[in-house]
């Protein structure tokens, strides 16, 4: 199974994007099965909201309030691309200063891998999600992305998290 980064989803629905053919082709295949996280859900909602006039929907849907259009677009993309939305991964207990608090497990995982991967926070969080989903819900082999920073850290990611990082155009 593969965790799909948001940039692959956006490219697949942007016909003029240079990566559209490879992203579309990857998503149209039954295998590997594809997984996204709660972060993907939030991030795709944010992207579609930011590009408001660039999101083209047909007339009956276009008349709906913007909030509902974005939600419908996200749900359509997830369903159309055959994505499994992984469920919440759980909490970790951390001790910071004088406080002992439960925090979302993906945050503690991202923090613990930060020194090794040295990526931006959202990149790290996607990878942390993929790693935890792989251990707790769906066994994942691949992290599919078009983000060069993540692709450049492929060997560290494989070593630390056991996930192979691939660009969709490099997949069969």
């Amino acid at each position, binding site marked *: 199974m593969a965790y799909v980064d948001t*940039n692959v989803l956006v490219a697949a629905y*942007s016909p003029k994007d240079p990566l559209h053919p490879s992203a579309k082709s990857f998503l149209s295949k039954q295998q590997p099965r594809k997984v996204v996280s709660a972060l993907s859900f939030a991030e795709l909602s944010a992207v579609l909201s*930011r590009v408001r006039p660039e999101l083209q929907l047909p007339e009956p849907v276009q008349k709906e309030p913007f909030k509902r259009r974005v939600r419908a677009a996200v749900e359509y993309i997830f369903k159309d691309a055959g994505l499994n939305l992984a469920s919440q991964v759980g909490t970790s207990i951390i001790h910071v200063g004088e406080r002992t608090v439960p925090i979302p497990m993906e945050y503690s995982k991202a923090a613990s891998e930060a020194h090794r991967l040295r990526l931006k926070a959202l990149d790290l969080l996607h990878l942390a999600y993929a790693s935890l989903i792989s251990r707790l819900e769906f066994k994942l082999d691949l992290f599919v992305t078009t983000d060069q920073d993540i692709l450049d850290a492929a060997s560290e990611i494989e070593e630390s998290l056991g996930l192979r990082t691939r660009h969709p155009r490099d997949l069969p």
Partner: protein
Amino acid sequence: MLKSKLSEELSEDEDVHELVEILFKLKKNGKNPLVLKLKKTAVETVAEGRGRWPT
């Protein structure tokens, strides 16, 4: 109990099932119901939201 009530109040969802059905019906009829006409590439658009331009 307070926490679960608050969590219920804070959770927001939209039932857009009907709209999604419309989009799939159009797709079944050979139309492309959702198109992004981005001014930037998909990589740039997503990377901007992550606080950087892609390298």
